[in-house]
């Protein structure tokens, strides 16, 4: 493995000039912009829990319409777009060739922007499809499929023309993401609408999609970035190739079985619930294999975290990954599920996965990639450092408030002598903490946006300086 990394480093320096990276620029700058725009939606939602009258009687701004916009905007506008942009950067470098087609890449980015704008308009207008995470109306979902095929063709064609025969683990994860997403997305958005797909049957497909949107789209795409950027940012070879294979192939097999754990104790066959519990516990295998590999790679290199913002995001993302993927299997135990399911604990858990882990990995990649593709240095390391601490402290504030509040809520629900409305009122302090944590996270987003845009826009003046690579 060590030799492979060294070879690739040498090759990367020698072939620096072959990459034009136009597609990477389009995708990453768009993603960072949507991160900030949808961040405003997130703050409005958090405010509504504390002040329910806030923007309360305008239909477009009610919670029921803003929540799908928040979820889809963050998942597709920010995170998936950022992961795709990073894939367009990583795969050509790991293959030692140019991206197969920059024109196709830019066209994909334009289509992606059309999708996100259509999503905003349709979701606020109440044209949601009514399936969680698959809220986009069918015509928009069709555009997503087209864009995904365009992305897939570009990446697979690049892999097919590669100079290095052996593929690095990030390349597997990205190929896996493209293949699995194709089927997971079709299941959630189209198979759910087939005639006769109603009730529990539709819900089972919906949860297969929802769970695997995180497990087989954002997990492999995020891990691909982490597997690439941890060795790159620390200039250290990956600890173990064999262990990365264990992680990858166990993820490929185990994840898809667990959808029904979203309906534990609910109206779905008991034996299917039990299967989903067994496989949820088995998720610990791919997670621990990956986390051990990341931590072992950093052995003797931890001092680098002091002055390397990308590594700070990558390693705190790794710790959040370990935690969120310990929570997941534990929630699927019937006894724990009876307390935490449907409570505010769950958004705490979901945000640690999507924000704390996969957005941290994506931001690490953006901080690493943007100065390099614009052949300049980051506008401000100090501001980048500030953004990290705002994300970390705001994130921890939000996660812990929601876990404690959710657990408390679950205990109260299990005592039916407490009227339901009392369990709502009891949570107001928790939601206030969440709102202020949200302001910190949003400030982190604003600093991130400012830093990245200044780096990109200021690159013209900086060209005279020697490029840092």
């Amino acid at each position, binding site marked *: 493995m060590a030799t492979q990394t060294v070879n690739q480093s040498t090759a990367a320096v020698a072939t620096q000039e072959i990459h034009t990276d136009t597609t990477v620029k389009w995708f990453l700058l768009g993603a960072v912009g949507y991160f900030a725009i949808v961040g405003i939606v997130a703050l409005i939602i958090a405010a*509504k829990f504390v002040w329910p009258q806030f923007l*309360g009687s305008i*239909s477009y701004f*009610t*919670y*029921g*319409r803003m929540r*799908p916009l928040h979820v889809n905007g963050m998942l597709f506008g920010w995170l998936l777009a950022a992961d795709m942009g990073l894939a367009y950067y990583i795969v050509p470098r790991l293959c030692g060739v140019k991206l197969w087609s920059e024109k196709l890449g830019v066209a994909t980015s334009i289509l992606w922007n059309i999708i996100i704008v259509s999503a905003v308009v349709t979701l606020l207008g*109440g*044209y949601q*499809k*009514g*399936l*969680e995470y698959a809220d986009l109306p069918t015509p928009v979902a069709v555009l997503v499929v087209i864009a995904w095929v365009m992305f897939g063709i570009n990446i*697979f064609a690049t*892999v097919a023309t590669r100079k290095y025969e*052996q593929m690095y683990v990030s390349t*597997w994860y990205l*190929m896996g993401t493209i*293949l*699995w997403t194709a*089927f997971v997305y079709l*299941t959630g958005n189209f*198979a759910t609408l087939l005639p*006769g797909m*109603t*009730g*529990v*049957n*539709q819900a*089972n*497909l919906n949860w*297969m999609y929802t769970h695997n949107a995180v497990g*087989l789209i954002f997990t492999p795409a995020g891990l691909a970035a982490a597997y690439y950027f941890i060795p790159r940012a620390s200039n250290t070879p990956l600890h173990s190739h064999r262990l990365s*294979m264990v992680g990858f*192939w166990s993820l*490929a*097999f*185990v*994840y*898809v*079985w667990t*959808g*029904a754990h979203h309906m534990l*104790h*609910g*109206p*779905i*066959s008991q034996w299917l619930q039990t299967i989903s519990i067994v496989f949820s516990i088995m998720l610990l295998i791919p997670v621990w294999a990956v986390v051990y590999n990341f931590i072992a790679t950093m052995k003797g290199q931890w001092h680098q975290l002091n002055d390397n913002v990308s590594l700070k995001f990558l390693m705190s993302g790794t710790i959040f990954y370990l935690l969120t993927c310990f929570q997941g299997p534990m929630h699927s135990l019937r006894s724990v599920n009876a307390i935490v399911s*449907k*409570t505010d604990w769950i958004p705490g858990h979901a945000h640690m996965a999507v924000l704390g882990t996969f957005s941290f990995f994506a931001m690490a990649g953006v901080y690493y990639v943007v100065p390099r593709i614009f052949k300049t240095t980051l506008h401000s390391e100090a501001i980048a450092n500030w953004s990290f601490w705002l994300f970390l402290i705001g994130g921890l504030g939000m996660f812990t408030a929601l876990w404690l509040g959710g657990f408390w809520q679950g205990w109260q*629900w*299990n*005592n*039916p002598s407490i009227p*339901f*409305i*009392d369990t*709502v*009122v009891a949570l107001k302090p928790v939601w206030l903490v969440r709102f202020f944590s949200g302001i910190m996270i949003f400030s982190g987003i604003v600093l991130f946006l400012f830093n990245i845009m200044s780096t990109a826009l200021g690159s013209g003046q900086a060209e005279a300086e020697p490029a840092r690579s």
Partner: protein
Amino acid sequence: MLHKTDSNAMLFVGAALGLFFIGGLLTTVAPPLLDKSWGKPFENHDATKGPTGKLVAYTEQEKRGYDIYIREGCKYCHTQQTRTLESDTIRSGWKGVRSPVSTPDEFVNDYRQTFGTKRTGPDLSRIGGKYSKEWHRAHFRNPRDLVPGSIMPPFPWIAENPDELDALVAYLQTRGRAKDWRPDNDYEK
């Protein structure tokens, strides 16, 4: 064997999709074939076997109400499942009567599943017949007038639109009514 996939992309694609489809097909296509209650509407006339009743098709008005429920994203705050937890059957109950747990055959006509994942407001799986239309109208106009401390948004554009209000209330009154579970039969219309 899998180490060959390191350098053979076609083999990689085959293995990645193969492993995915084992679990994918067994957990999505197989269950409805094995458990018929997923597709067969609830019907029971034998009181010794549990609650009696019959799941009936939605009327046109109820369907319009169902679409409003989807449009406004109600399911993001309200679940519709009385789980197999004692506290759920008590909380979904009414006037001291416990509600039966939800079963797949009660949801066969639901063309958009509304089970939900988050209970910011109370569960609605047995809301049908608990409150009158007048109560719902006042509640949609401003939930805090009836339930102090509630954080539900007001829905004036529904409360002030008789067509939409009637449709949405008609839909809500169907929730949980496939099973006749209240001995006094004291359901509001």
